């Protein structure tokens, strides 16, 4: 009787297993959002490397994934120092007044999993320059079981990795970034490319 109770308890625990919490402050520092804008002479491309946040992901139930990814506005850079200053200035992102760019993932839909990769549409609240909008973006989540320690050259650590990839476009005017201005010089559309990894060390 006692044995059956323990077995039942173990089964119930496994069925209601908590999702893994992945920390996106990458110890190797590769996490970044890349952005591209068409402009006069050449496209403006840059990166935002100050990525933090956590995502709760259950490999057995990817549809239940939730989380919050934060990007430090001051970490946005382009190859030209003057352009970087303009980008951070009140005219563009106003990094001093809006230190964070946030995406809060509330739900995953159109979920399909093949092997370790889950494709889905991520819906949530995207906040940029003090403006928050509901957006839906296509993403791919790759769960690399046991790869956390291996990546840090410490296989004894164990743990899992979650790689999130996605690409989407926003209109800068929607977020109060020079709405309707300089559109002949800098395209109003900003293409954002996301490729970030989160780690969940073995507890």
């Amino acid at each position, binding site marked *: 009787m006692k044995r059956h109770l323990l077995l039942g308890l173990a089964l119930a625990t496994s069925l209601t297993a908590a999702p893994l919490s992945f920390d996106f402050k990458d110890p190797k520092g590769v996490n970044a959002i890349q952005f591209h804008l068409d402009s006069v002479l*050449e496209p403006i491309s840059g*990166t935002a490397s100050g990525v933090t946040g956590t995502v709760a992901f259950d490999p057995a139930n990817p549809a239940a994934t939730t989380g919050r990814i934060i990007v430090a506005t001051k970490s946005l850079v382009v190859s030209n120092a003057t352009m970087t200053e303009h980008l951070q200035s009140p005219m563009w992102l106003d990094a001093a007044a809006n230190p964070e760019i946030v995406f809060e993932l509330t739900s995953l839909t159109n979920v399909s999993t093949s092997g370790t990769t889950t494709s889905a549409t991520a819906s949530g609240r995207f906040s940029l320059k003090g403006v928050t909008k509901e957006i839906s973006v296509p993403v791919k989540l790759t769960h690399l079981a046991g790869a956390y320690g291996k*990546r840090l050259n410490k296989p004894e650590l164990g743990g899992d990795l979650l790689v999130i990839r996605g690409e989407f476009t926003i209109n800068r005017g929607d977020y109060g970034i020079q709405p309707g201005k300089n559109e002949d010089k800098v395209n109003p559309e900003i293409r954002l490319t996301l490729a970030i990894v989160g780690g969940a060390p073995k507890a």
Partner: protein
Amino acid sequence: MTTPAATAFDLRRLARLLGLVVLLGTGVFWAAKGAHTGWSQNRVPHRQVDEITGIEYVTYEDRFVPGLEVLAAGLGLAAGLFAISFFFNRNQPAPTQ
């Protein structure tokens, strides 16, 4: 002793020579630094791939690469010097006693 006409002629030649030096110097500098056809760069991006995750990420090398605006500025300065050279009149009259 040099006459005012000779001085003006020398200045005229000097301005044109300076213009040529600026033009060639800027062109050689721009070409030697990579002949970048976009805006100037203060940091040069390099793409790298993280081994385990396959994530492509960008690292930056602090290095100045002159862009087309540097070339344009050199061309403008050279043109300015060439234009200034015309203000030095070759046929200035000799000063009266």
